[in-house]
Structures are given as C-alpha cells and as structure tokens.
C-alpha cells in the first residue's frame, strides 16, 4: 500500500517540471482508454468493527474486448464504488470488479449500470512482444479530455515486486520523462497502438517507469477465459545462491556451472508435492540451465530470475521438468505446478476487500494475526512489532506443526467492568479458551459459547498465561458494545 500513497505526491512534484515529449495524440487513445474513478474504504485493523474514512483514487483503464476494462488491482482494492468515465464526453457508468488478482496486481471491470456503455469504444489488442529499445507510449488525458501521449524507451526487464512483498513478477523498465496529468493512477502503455502494459510506478529522480508487461496481462486474461481463475502458480521454495567455491565443492557441484540450493520447501506447495527437499540443488528447469545466482538466460531480456520460468509462461496445472542434484547424483523430476492460496498461510500475507476476522468477548478483542496487522507497527515494524509475533511470521511452521490454521491474538482489552485489571494486556497469542485449543477465530467463538462455569477461562502462550472473565457480565458488556459498534464479531 505504501507505493500507492507515494504516487500522488510525485504528481505534485512533477507538475513543476516541464520537460516532455508530448505529441499530438493518436485518435485511438480517447477511444481505448477510460477514466476509472474509485472510492475505497479499508477496514480498520485496530477497531475491526469499523472502516476507515473513505478516500478516492482517479486512474485510467484499458478497454478490452467484450465490454471490459483492465486496471491494476491497486485501483480497486477495498473499493466501495467504481465509476467508468469517458474522457471525451464525461459520460459515466457504474462498474463492478469481475476478476482480481492482488498478487499479479491486475483486475477486470465491467459496467453494470449500462451494459452498452463501452459499445462506442475501440478495445485494445495485446502487443505480443516487447524488447529492449522498443519505443512505447504512455497514454493519458488532459483535464479537458484531450489525449496526451508520452514516449518512453524500454531498457530492460527484471523480476520484481508489484505491490505485495510476497509475490515477484516480470517488470519492464523504460526510460524517459513522464509528465503525469491528474487522474493518472496507472497509465496504459501502447506499442503500435496495441496494449504493451500498464505503467505502475514512475521514479521522478531517475526517470524510470516500471511497466507491468502484456505477457503477464495475457497470462491473467487467458486464465480467466474458462470462467474459473486458477491464479499464477508458485514453486514454494526458499533458496540460496551457490557462488561460494567451498560450498560448491561440499555439494559436489564443482563439475556443474550453476545451480541453486534449496533451503526449505513450503508444505503443500508445488515443490514439496513433487518431492523436492531442502538440500537439493536445482540445476535446470524445462531445459533452461539455472546459474549460481538463480537466474536463467531469457532470449529477449537476458538474465532473469528462475521464478519467471515458473509463473511467466506456465499455468497452474502444467508440468515442469526440474533437473536436480541430490546427494551428488543428478535426477530429473516432473513437477506439477499448483498454487498455494494465500488463505492457507498461517499468517495472511494480505487482506483486501474483507474485514479482519475478530470476536469481542466481554471487551477483550480477539483477532487472527495477519501481515497487515504486523505492519501497523510502522515502517520499522520488523524491529518494533512484538518479538513473538515476528517469530511466528518468520517461522510459521512452529505453529503449523501443532495443527494451527491461524494464530488468534488477544489484541487488546477495551476497558469494561468485565476486563477490570486486564487493561494493559495486549497482543497475546491465545492457546486455549474454556479448555479448547484455539486454531482460528471460529474455534474461539465456539469455545466462548461453552463456558464450563460462570467464568470464561482464557489461556495465553506468555505472561500472564491465564485470565478469567465473568460469563454473565461479558454477555451484558458485549450487548452494550454491539449497540455501540454495530458488530462485535466477523468470523468469515
């Protein structure tokens, strides 16, 4: 979310810098690009019964065949209201999200108030190839609806982060000054009037644009065709480079050129399912040799991370042939690509378009631990968040081994008659509630319905280990809190 916030600030800075190669726009810009105005409202993670103040975002979308519009997922996360607007006539239609992939940062919208709204537009076709040296155009509009075109030059591509830390995809870099117009959050980029990608960020300091390329867009759209979106596959490994001579000798890799060392395999993901193990060395994937840094040679872009071999072309369900070295012996392993959905993680890596799962009991606020929750501790959250929670985030297997699906926290105690004496307790990992082991928020809610006596018994992993709350008092407090907050639990 941090990148989104920075862009509007950059716009202001850019307004003062006047240098740009602005040409008379080709007529198709106004016919193939629409304005997308969204109102977004994220859930409040500290007071999970409410949403934060709404904010708006103005961006651009690319018209696709079939009366649809392509935008970045960032444009529509936590959206409460989406409008499409034609730049030339300022006609508007209400739209909805048809499909979204937060990891790939892509979403497809469709008008709902007027099904024929896009009938007079000219849909984009996807450019099939991009390469270094290509000149591409970023399309946007003046306030008055006049199209503006800025030419930038493609320099290279690398595998990088889109807007979630947890997912890496191919990103194309292009050089040249881009003068942003207002309402230009993500710009469609065209090559020969075909959609070459979406410009997702721009650094005014070194004048480099980052483009989410057509190949990823095409993968996303193709996956959508059958109506069931499977998502980009992931390998599910952590790996180390093997540049160190002593390490190569130890691994009996001296004869080989490259190879990466598997540190760990994520249970339930592709690599684990195919039988890959920590300690194996991956030498090649589908015949592409992997070097000691974990890159392979891409015919157009040169050295790219092996992750592009996993999610760049193949789809979930496809097979990869992985050449490995195990205990000094070469093997070829056929690996079926699967996707371990984010919901299966012990700690959800992101949370969009849904509120945090929580339950209030007598004023004690219980919530499942998520990465967005850890990030509440600020930019320096890796040093400032409670150390036990950071350990759980870094080593989820500690808890997964115990059969935990999620970690439930007692986030804080709202001062009420039922929480007297507990006001200072916060961010404690709950182990048991009324004697029942707690593996997710639903467990906790169910356990709270079955107290053994007149007190709820709540056990924590750390100090003070054990507290009690009066059952009847808690029920009265909760009724009052429900009056005040509207809801006091969200279990799904």
């Amino acid at each position, binding site marked *: 979310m941090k990148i989104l916030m920075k862009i509007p600030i950059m716009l202001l800075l850019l307004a003062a810098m006047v240098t740009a190669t602005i040409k008379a726009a080709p007529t198709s810009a106004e016919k193939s690009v629409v304005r997308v105005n969204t109102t977004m409202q994220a859930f409040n993670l500290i007071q999970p019964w409410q949403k934060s103040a709404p904010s708006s975002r103005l961006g651009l979308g690319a018209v696709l065949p079939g009366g649809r519009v392509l935008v970045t997922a960032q444009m529509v996360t936590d959206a409460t209201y989406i409008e499409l607007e034609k730049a030339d006539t300022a006609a508007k239609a209400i739209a909805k999200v048809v499909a979204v992939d937060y990891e790939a940062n892509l979403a497809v919208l469709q008008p709902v108030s007027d099904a024929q709204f896009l009938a007079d537009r000219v849909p984009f076709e996807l450019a099939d190839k991009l390469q270094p040296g290509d000149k591409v155009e970023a399309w946007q509009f003046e306030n008055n609806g006049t199209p503006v075109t800025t030419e930038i030059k493609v320099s290279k591509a690398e595998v990088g982060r889109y807007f979630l830390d947890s997912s890496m995809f191919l990103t194309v870099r292009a050089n040249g000054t881009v003068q942003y117009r207002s309402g230009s959050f993500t710009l469609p980029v065209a090559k020969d009037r075909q959609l070459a990608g979406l410009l997702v960020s721009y650094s005014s300091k070194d004048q480099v644009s980052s483009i989410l390329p057509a190949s990823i867009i095409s993968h996303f759209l193709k996956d959508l065709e059958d109506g069931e979106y499977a998502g980009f596959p992931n390998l599910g490994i952590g790996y180390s480079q093997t540049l160190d001579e002593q390490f190569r000798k130890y691994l009996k890799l001296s004869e080989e050129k490259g190879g990466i*060392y598997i540190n760990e395999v994520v249970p339930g993901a592709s690599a684990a399912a195919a039988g890959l193990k920590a300690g194996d060395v991956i030498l090649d994937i589908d015949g592409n040799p992997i070097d000691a840094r974990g890159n392979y040679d891409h015919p157009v872009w040169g050295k790219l991370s092996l992750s592009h071999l996993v999610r760049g072309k193949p789809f979930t369900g496809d097979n990869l042939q992985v050449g490995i070295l195990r205990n000094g012996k070469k093997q070829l392993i056929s690996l079926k690509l699967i996707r371990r959905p984010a919901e299966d993680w012990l700690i959800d890596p992101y949370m969009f378009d849904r509120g945090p799962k929580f339950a209030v009991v007598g004023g004690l606020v219980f919530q499942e631990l998520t990465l967005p929750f850890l990030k509440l501790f600020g930019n320096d959250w890796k040093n400032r968040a409670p150390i036990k929670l950071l350990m759980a985030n870094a080593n989820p297997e500690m808890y997964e081994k115990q059969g935990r699906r999620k970690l439930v926290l007692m986030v804080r105690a709202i001062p009420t008659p039922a929480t007297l004496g507990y006001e200072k307790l916060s961010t404690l990992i709950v182990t048991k509630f009324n004697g029942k082991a707690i593996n997710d928020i639903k467990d906790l809610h169910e356990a709270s319905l079955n107290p053994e006596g*007149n007190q709820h018994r709540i056990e924590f992993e*750390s100090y003070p280990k054990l507290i009690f709350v009066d059952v009847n008092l808690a029920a009265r407090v909760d009724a009052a809190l429900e009056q005040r907050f509207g809801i006091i639990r969200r279990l799904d």
Partner: protein
Amino acid sequence: MKPITSLPVPTIAALTLFAISSSALPAKDTKKSNQYEAVVRIENSSLNPDYRTPWNSGRDSGGNGTGWLVAPNKFVTNAHVVSNSRIVYIKKVGDAKPYRAKILHIAHDCDLAMLELEDPSAFEGVEPFEVGELPQLDTTVKVIGYPIGGERISITSGVVSRIDFLSYSHSAVDLHLTVQIDAAINPGNSGGPVLQNGKVVGVAFQGYSGNVAQNTGYMIPPPVIRRFLKDIEDGQYDHYVDLTMSEFTLLNPAQRAALGLANDGIGIMVANAEADGSAGGILKTGDVLMAIDGLPVKSNGLINYEGEDVNMNEIVERKFAGDVINLKIWREQKLVSAKVTLKRFLPYLITAKQYDKKPRYVMFAGLVFQPMDRNLMTAHNIKDLQVRYHYDAYVSDSIYKERPEVIVLTSILPDSINSYFSSFSQSIVDEVNGTKIKTLKDIHSALGKSDGDFITIRLLGQGRPLVIDRSRVAAAQKRIQEKYNVIRDHYLEEQ
C-alpha cells in the same frame, strides 16, 4: 528480585549514574574540615573491554565518586564507581595525597562495593559512620560528596520524597528498595553518604537527568546496605536470591471467583515459576500466593512490613542463599503450605549489564563467535530476529535449558576463506558438524576436531549451512591473526 517477562518495570533508560567519567587533579585543600573526614573522594582508573574486538585489552578510562568509612579501614561506595577497575585511589578531606586502595567486595546486583587502603594509617582515629534506619517520608537528609561544580566537599539537603521498589540501573535487571530524595545529587555524588542525625541512611547512586525529571535523586536505603554488609561478613559476596516467579494482580472479580477466592483483596496469582529457579516445581501457573512468611499478600503484590506497604519481594530481598521462606498457597480450592529454599538464578545475568569480566570468544577462519549477553547485544547492535528472540525470551521461554549459552557469530574478519559468508553474520550457531552447540567451549572443541574435509556450521534462521574447506583453515587462521592483530584466537575462561 528481577523482572521476568513483561511485568511493568520502571523505565530505566533515563536513569543516570552519578559517577564522573573524566577526572582532573584537585587543587590542594588547605583547611581541615574534620566533621567530614570519613567522607572520601574515590578516583578510579578503569579498563573497559570492547566486545567488538574481544581479543584487545580494552579502552582506558576513569572517573570519580564518593565513599565513606563504615568501619576501620573499610570504605563503602557504589559498585559503578569502581567497576572494571585497574587502579583505585582514595583521597581524604584536606589531604592532597592519593592513597592506593583495593576492592574487597563488589556487588553489581545492588550497586555497592567495599574498599580497603593498603596503608590505613592516614585514617587512624577517624570515626566511622553508623548505619541508621530507613528514614521516614518528609524528613530532612543531607547528601555529602564530591560532585561536579568544584573540587572540594559539597553538602546539599532535602527531604525523603518517596520509598519504592525500583530498578537499579547499574545492572539494569535488579530491583530493590530505593528511596527518592529531593536534595541535589549530581555526578560525583555516587557512593556518598546521605545523613540523618549523623547516621548514614542512604548511599546516593542514581537519578534522572534534568531534562527528564527535576529534583529526583535516589539513594540505596539501609536495608540494602545492611544486607550487603552482612553478606560479606564471611569474606565473600554471595549475591541476591530470587523467588524466580512472575505474578499477576488479582483485581478482576471473575478471576478471583474462578480461583475460588473471596473478594477480600488478598492473594496474587502465579503466572509462571521458572523451572530452574527457587520456586520451580513448587509454584505453578494459577496458584495464588496468599501469604509470605506469615504476612498476607495483597492482590496488588504488596505486604505490610515494618509498618510500610512494600513489595512482597522485600521478604526475599533480606534473605540469603539457603534461607527458607514459608508460603501459603491457594491451590485448587485448598490452602496449602510450602517451603522454598532460596537460591540465586543465573540465567538473569544474560540480560544484565556485566562488569569486571573479560569478553569470551572464539575466532575461527575470521568468524568471531561470542556468547550472547547484554554487553554483546549493546556492542554489536544486533538486528537478527533469532538473536533478539533468544535474548528477550531467554528466561521466559526457558531457553537457558536448551542452550546454557547462546553462541552468536557476531562478526567476520574478511579474508578469502570467508568472502561469501557476510550474510551469516549476527546469527546463532545451532550445530557444528552435527554437534549441538550449547556453550562456547562446545564450539571451540567442535571446530578443533579434525575429521572430514569440511566444517559445516548450521545457524538458526539461515537456509543453508556455512561450509569451510578444512584444508584451507590453518593458513587462513595464521594470516587473519597477523592481519587483524588477533593475539589469541580464543578466550574461554569464566571468571
């Protein structure tokens, strides 16, 4: 008594100790002021070890404080005045001559020390001070000493503002009875006597800097001074003992009802009792401590002792190793009695500031291994999550049982043998060639064995093993020791 886990512990960051850390020679004092002959100036030259280069002798520094005569040729001062000492001198009022002194006892856990002169003749006939009783609130006291602002003896006065159980910032983990006074206490006052009716009722030792709080100085009160004097009677200091439990207040009526207690404000819940501590195996989570040595424990953890409401640990505070305390415990709706034999709990020392110790280390192929403690954490500014967790939870998660010492690869002296190892820096060593590492001696002997072509070191939180080609080690070791001036490649002894 020391805080376990997240008990509300007073913030000590702002507390400063009142020894001066740069000294100048005093001008000759010509006039005799016999009244304060028993108050002396103490000048200490220290050698402070550097945990970043543990093979070096350390950094020379010095400072001065105050001391006072408690018995013939026995001077009391603060431990922090004479910590890491190389050489100590005592100066008498009106006498420019420094007298060489030696440290007889130093108690870092209560910030007190006892010194003795090599030649006591200069103090013959000087009347020692008597230690008085705990002063009452709002009574006047005088602070005598050699603080900044001049060379000669200084006297300030004020009243007793508060009596509380507070953190002693010298070790940073110990809490003891403390008396707050509003007399000016400044750097150099440390170790000096606080007088009432001619008797010592406190030793000035710490306070806040002026931009945090005004007129709040702290002194070590008579119960703590007396305990120190009694402890050393047998010729050695045996340290404080601990109950080694964390407790949780019983203010919530439901908590009381669930535990079967009347709503009468008596009893505090045991949150955790450390297995290897005094109360380990005797107290357990959910027990309620009702009385300690016959005194009822209130639900906020206070007892009425000698007419004052004080922390229940005050009972433990005055005991010695081997002493027994009697507890009344409410467990599963029954009142039971238990006897606890008190002992010292060493794992606490991991988070204590330590002094008078030579840093221990092993340097192997440029890799520097050191046991984790507070001094190491401060010196290396460690960010690694695993190290921070092991440090934070060393006691509360009983890590001391699995790893009596947590061995950290603190730094790497760059050389061709370790040029790809930088990402391993600041992580915890788990195994060397399959052997679990639990102490510094373990890693020294595991690295010293010469079987196999490779040395493989597993570090916590690091995906791959660190692998060293054994055939390259001998030459590298010699090269690195010469290049980086590492005189010895290990130091294992504990003092």
